[in-house]
């Protein structure tokens, strides 16, 4: 199968790879770059466990081809912590018990960190709408909402 050479900037680092046309972005990240924080939960872009930030927008990386990300700037959960300092959403999820099994957490963190870039003071309803494409089977969402509110407060 034909291979394509692509370059991306992932969590600030320039990386190159030769990939098949059909390779999904999530597998580029997990299996080629060996960053396993981004998870696969459904294959139909419903659960959001694979959410990464692509050129500033949260996207479901199971529904993006790696070749489509050529030249893009990607942030994954591994890139949230900066210089040993947690991102406020990471802090918020711990402080407010916004995670249990942790499987949906990377996707939730990417979606909500992107939300807070766009909206410094989201209402509860806006937070719920923002994470409505990210399923969590453990927490019942209330503490995730509180975690995002905590982070918003810290970022203001």
């Amino acid at each position, binding site marked *: 199968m034909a291979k394509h050479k692509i370059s991306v900037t992932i969590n600030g680092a320039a990386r190159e790879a030769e990939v*098949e046309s*059909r*390779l999904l972005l999530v*597998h580029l990240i*997990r*299996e080629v770059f*060996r*960053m*396993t*924080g*981004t*998870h*696969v*939960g*459904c*294959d*139909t872009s*419903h*659960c959001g*466990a694979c959410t990464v930030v692509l050129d500033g927008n949260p996207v479901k990386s199971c529904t993006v081809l790696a070749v489509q990300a050529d030249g893009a700037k990607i942030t*994954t*959960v*591994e890139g*949230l*912590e900066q210089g040993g300092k*947690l991102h406020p959403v*990471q802090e918020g*999820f*711990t*402080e407010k*018990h916004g*995670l*249990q*099994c*942790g*499987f*949906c*957490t*990377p996707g939730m*963190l990417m979606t909500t960190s992107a939300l807070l870039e766009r909206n410094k003071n989201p209402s*509860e309803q806006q*937070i*719920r*709408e923002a*994470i*409505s*494409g*990210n*399923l*969590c*089977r*453990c*927490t*019942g*969402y*209330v*503490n*995730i*909402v509180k975690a995002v509110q905590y982070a918003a407060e810290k970022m203001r």
Partner: protein
Amino acid sequence: MSEPRTDAKICGMGHSMKRKEDPRFIRGQGRYIDDFTLPGMLYMDIVRSPHAHARIKKINTARALKIPGVLAVIDGPTLAKYNLHWMPTISADTQMVLPIDEVMYQAQEVCAVIATERYIAADGVDAVEVEYEPLPVMVDPHKSLAPGAPVLRKDKEGKKDNLAFHWQAGDKADAERALAASDVVISENVYLPRIHVASMETCGCIADFDTAQGKLTVYMTTQAPHAVRTVFALVAGHVGLSEEKIRIVSPDIGGGFGGKVPVYPGYVIAVAASVVIGKPIKWIEDRMENLQADSFARDYHMKVELGAKRDGTMTSLKIKTVADHGYANASANPSKFPTGLFSICTGSYDLKHAFCEVDAAYTHKPPGGVAYRCSFRVTEAVHAIERATDALAQKLNMDPAELRMKNFIKPEQFPYKSVLGWEYDSGNYGVALKKAMDIIGYDALRREQAEKRKKGDLMGIGISSFTEIVGAGPSRDFDILGIKMFDSAEIRVHPTGKAIARFGTKSQGQGHETTYAQIVAEELGIPAAHVQVEEGDTDTAPYGLGTYASRSTPTSGAACALAARKIRDKAKKIAAHLLEVSEQDLDWEPGKFFVKGAPQMAKTIQECAFAAYTNHPQGMEAGLEAVHYYDPPNLTFPFGSYICVVDIDRGTGDVKVRRFVAVDDCGNIINPMIVEGQIHGGLTQGIGPALYEEISYDDEGNISGGSFLDYYVPTALETPHWETDKTTTPSPHHPFGAKGVGESATVGAPPAIANAVVRKSASGRIRVATAMTTTMRTIERPAGEPV
């Protein structure tokens, strides 16, 4: 226990300690099964049947094997050479690993492709050509049990019907006499649909057979690693797998909820492939496989009859159930009762007469079921009695809260022996219901509802006052293939006063690394931050039966406290030796022994630990460690009262949960933050099946609800802002008065929603809420149809 006994530095019971597992999870450094890559690892993918019932005429693998990177195709005849094509289920039935000639449900495993890469394995699956001859399909459990129905399990010699089992509890004639003598009797058909745990992580494994050492290591998504090790040794002993040469490692698990208790065919095929090929084999389900082929939950068709005197005193309960088990009884049920704990169906009420029975049917559906966040069939039992209670209230024209208060088992009746044989350890039901009513403003809501009804608006108020039964053993009633349902803890205190603690359970998000550390901190005064908790590796952890049925705190939690107390007893001897006093002269406060009347003369637990390795008394064994295997004397009986308010759109049937108040009682609490989190999650898994989730089949056995496209797990938009509170009734027999809490809300929430939505109108029609897929056609249904 209201205030913590330890300070924040020690962080024993009652502290909302931040979780020790979080730092890795929020950094994306959790290690789930698909995150592991072993040298030389191959990938497995599975060909599945598009038919619910068919004869396999031919499997043509030639095209698949031509694909570069496809190494092998394993089918039923391959496994039959090793007599591994069938396996026993936990419930004394058998199921296929891979079929020889006939498939019995849609999405059943037909054969497996082994390849060098994940994508190539998938290519191989597409290239395998299977010729089927479709056969007649049985999807309706009632028809399956009818006389003359074609026999599904022709593999069972002499089997003449499709009854998987019949089970009953109580005195039928007595219950029927009492019903006949009742002033009023209600009869309700209650159906709990087939649903799925849908944990965010699917199932998978890496089977790694080391040919040099003859040792098999299986990294797998299992809630019960030790039990799986023993099962593998029992099932595959004849091909040379011996238990000391099997290691099961359960890494971080992305949610289990009971769905990761069973041993699915995929695990067994991967193990067989690794043993034959001699390389590590990775198998990871996709979501469709997970929803379509893994064990389901519920699927109980119940007819519930409840009698009462005119004044509302309940007299007798009778439940007849038809249970759809799919093509095999693969119930992940660790009790000696085929229907688990269904006979808890008298609930929170002082019923003197009761009878229940279950007929389990074979159908052309996947086998199961699992105890989805429930101690097996407790959800069904609670739903039956709580729905019947509301129907009775409506028939008597009595407020459902008042009817419950009147019939509750009274606090002074505990320990209470139920008519169906359980000894409830403790309870105080009226206080919990009163608290929930006060929080939600019950009387005002009833007034609002009456006003709204006059205007034709649909507003529902639903109550559920459930009693749970969790924490299996005791071993007299509970086992897995004969292995008794105890559980274990092993604690080692190091010379510097830090500790490692290992358990036979396995967290899937419940926070054991934190809560077990808090138990050690409570008992020994060693800060929880200094206690490393490990589970899931059968080579290192003490033997245990795993985490499900809300059993970790009631069993391993108890074992943890008792192991810690053994350590404290030894430390006391060491302290007496160091202080040159007798043991009787010493008192304990968390973290140190001190001389009675002279508190300045003290030795900390850390000093005792150091001395255990450096300066222990003559004649005493060195070291400071203990192991405890705990077989509980009884189950624990957490309870609660939930009240919800819903607004229903008369036009669309859409149900909006306006408020939901949950008052829970799980006895003494280890970590209030984690308990609240468990309740929140359970409530969300309670509204799911009540309003949105359902797996159903058409007449051909085609599944609906087989992907997240049409299996509707609640999102943040449907989920209300949960309001929680608690009462505290400690378990009298648990070492620190705790009861299991992980499942209370999943059990208690669905009938609260159902009771808010279902109501018979004067014309005999009823409003019902069902899964979203069927809402449009079921806003009104004739009375008598299942709800």
